[in-house]
């Protein structure tokens, strides 16, 4: 674990990988809930957790350096099921990367239990981990100027769902009608860091 100062009031805690970052994030959220950590933002990411809005960053850094963070993921987080039609325009490209037929992409994806490793890019956009390394795919070489809301997409180690229409460079494999973000709902984000996610297929692979 490496603790990097960020400006006057933040710390970036760097760990060795995604699982470690998820475990550290869970531990820091637990400490905040128990009143052991006063911090405005806890932002997990691929290999780091950012603590922003610290009154005494040096003291927190010393505490973290001395602490033992359990490297285990918490169990029993809520599970969210997202209905999905595997009808994305890049399904064939992904199948070619994996070296399998398109329907096998859908089968593997729907059989995987994902976790929200972190959020970013847009409100309610979660970076979901769970696919094995052989299923990681590159981004598209040229991003689309408009990806529709509800598009289920892959890039690198991650699966994501576009909460609203936006430009995007991920490989689109399907579509969900689930509302990922609704600021009039509590909570506004369907997917929050730590949430477990399953995709439940509806309709035929390749469109219905």
């Amino acid at each position: 674990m490496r603790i990097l100062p960020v400006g006057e009031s933040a710390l970036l805690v760097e760990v060795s990988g995604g699982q470690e970052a998820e475990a550290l994030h869970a531990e820091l959220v637990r400490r905040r809930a128990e009143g052991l950590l006063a911090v405005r933002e806890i932002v997990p990411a691929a290999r780091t957790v950012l603590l922003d809005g610290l009154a005494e960053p040096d003291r927190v850094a010393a505490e973290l350096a001395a602490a033992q963070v359990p490297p285990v993921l918490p169990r029993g987080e809520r599970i969210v099921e997202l209905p999905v039609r595997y009808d994305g325009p890049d399904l064939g490209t992904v199948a070619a990367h994996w070296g399998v037929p398109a329907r096998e992409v859908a089968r593997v994806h729907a059989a995987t239990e994902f976790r929200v490793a972190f959020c970013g890019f847009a409100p309610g956009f979660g970076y979901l981990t769970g696919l094995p390394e052989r299923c990681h795919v590159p981004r598209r070489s040229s991003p689309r100027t408009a990806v529709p809301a509800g598009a289920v997409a892959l890039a690198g180690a991650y699966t994501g769902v576009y909460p609203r229409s936006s430009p995007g460079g991920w490989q689109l494999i399907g579509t969900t009608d689930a509302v990922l973000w609704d600021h009039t709902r509590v909570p506004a984000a369907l997917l929050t860091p730590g949430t477990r996610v399953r995709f439940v297929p509806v309709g035929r692979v390749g469109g219905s």
Partner: protein
Amino acid sequence: MTDRALAVVRAGALTTVQDLGRPGHAHLGVPRSGALDAPAAALVNRLVGNPVTAAVLETTLNGCALRPRSAVTVAVGGAPCAVSVDGRPAAWGAAVRVPAGALLEVGAAVAGVRSYVAVAGGITVEPVLGSRSTDLLSGLGPAPLAGGTVLPLGRPYGPHARVDVAPQPRPPAELVLRVTPGPRADWFTPRALTVFTSRPYRVSPAGNRIGLRTEGPALERARTGELPSEGMVLGAVQVPPDGRPVVFLADHPTTGGYPVIAVVRHRDLPAAAQAAPGTPVRFLAVGRR
């Protein structure tokens, strides 16, 4: 709608509703947003008797024109500009009474970039996650003003301030930004670090509420490859592949994959919000406190 409302006659280049923003949601990908020149927004609120949490209007370069449906007290501050009511000059940086149906004109900034318009009672559009701020990155909050937009107003909180003209800092002729190196200074060559804190930059016209872009010498990386996405803070100086530093302002993305060479002191960010394109910029390395 009641007559506690403000009709937009001329929206200007970019006029948005802003308050203190919506911090605390970065882990969901929600930017903090809020007035870029927060002290100026707080000052105009105080001038009309509002708490600092009230929502104000933030203009960009060429002001705006507004017509209240009932008599209101307003104050304009931040970037200096001409203020008039039905064509008659009115005070900048002080409370001004605008009669019902009169035209309040907030002129183009004569220096700086962003003027702030507070109305007694505040702009009371529906809050989103506890804030009325327009967030240009993620589209949360009300849309930027357009001609014909009607904004609801709250009831005045109390008497306005009894001052002739409140002192306000002048927009910077040169923008000096004190920076603390890191967290990714080691992604750059030692020469790049020296160039960054010794050579002059200029404010690029391509900047916006997301980031202050600069023009100047490109900063050379010591390592290639991609940095996995990581959390970003207000004032982070991110260096995209073109090597020109970008200072993250209120609507910045909550995570990003370009290395952050340094972080600007929060106290220096209001001046950054008022630095017009072409303003010289100097990054000054300081310790963390």
